[in-house]
């Protein structure tokens, strides 16, 4: 192997290993950050769970949209003003509805969403169990007196018969008989 290939492989491996440690890029600009690390970490938690209203399925922390930046600023302003996390979420829901929550609330309107999957799993599981039970043959009914007699006759006749048909590979039993 030429040394050049080795260099290339080593380089490729480095890139691969480094990519394992890659984090999703934050859209958050340095100047947006709060000086207080505790508040900033709460703002990040909230920002990860608020949905950008113009980019479908991105959190506001990951979005470069203008509105997302406004929302990040509003989150920080509310936190600095002393709001709890729940109050900040309420603030956003009051303006944009449940749409802004990446984790939808559990309400009658969202029951299908939350319970639909588990329910289908449950029903399907129950159906499988039922089907499996049905397929297992039921225990046969006990023999009648008449059947018992016939069975004993058959068994006694079978004693006189060879256990295996005689053939080229005869068993020792056959030898005795011969």
């Amino acid at each position, binding site marked *: 192997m030429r040394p050049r290939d080795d260099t290339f492989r080593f380089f490729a491996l480095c890139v691969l290993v480094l990519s394992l440690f890659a984090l999703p890029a934050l859209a958050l600009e340095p100047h947006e950050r709060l000086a207080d690390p505790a508040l900033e970490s709460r703002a990040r938690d909230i920002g990860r769970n608020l949905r950008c209203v113009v980019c479908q399925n991105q959190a506001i922390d990951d979005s470069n949209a*203008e509105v997302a930046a*406004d929302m990040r600023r509003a989150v920080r302003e509310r936190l600095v003003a002393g709001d709890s996390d729940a109050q900040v979420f309420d603030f956003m829901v009051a*303006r944009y509805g449940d749409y802004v929550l990446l984790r939808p609330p559990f309400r009658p309107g969202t029951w299908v969403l939350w319970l639909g999957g588990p329910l289908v799993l449950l029903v399907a599981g129950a*159906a499988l169990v039922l*089907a499996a039970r049905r397929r297992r043959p039921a225990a046969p009914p006990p023999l009648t007196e008449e059947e018992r007699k016939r069975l004993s006759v058959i068994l006694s006749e079978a004693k006189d018969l060879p256990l295996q048909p005689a053939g080229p590979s005869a068993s020792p039993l056959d030898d005795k008989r011969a």
Partner: protein
Amino acid sequence: MNRALFLLPLLMVAVLAGFFGWSLLAGRDPASIGSVMVGRPAPKLAAPALRKGEPALDESLLKSGRPVIVNFFASWCAPCLAEHPLFMRLAERDRATIVGIAWKNKPDDARAWLARLGDPFKYAGTDLDGRLGLDWGLSGVPETYVIDAQGIVRLHFRGPITERDLDRILPLLRGGS
């Protein structure tokens, strides 16, 4: 019973097909973010005036006892250009009270845009940093709100209004005046 179980997958496919069919035919748009503003009292209104020498915009505009249209626009926004003639018509022909808010738009640019195209706004304000827009649940420009004489938001359009939307806007304007 066992046979009926085999029909279950078929039934599920039928239900899904029905849902997809309904979504297509009823024009359901899963990307639509809807609006929570409709049916609620209009959000707070406070904005510096866009035109020089006019007083700042405040709550009282929405409580004049007449229906009001509030339109967020920007000179950099192409769909705003598209809907602009409709607002001119609403202002001139229907004498609608229209409040324009220049969103994230340099006042000079917004003023030049209105000078060039015509100014349909009875009141015009600016929202340079998007704070007012956020309070109104704005996702971008253009967006338009129709507020009735009682100050309740009746319609909220995300995106440019079209001819067809006038059919919903005009009755509201007449109903309250």
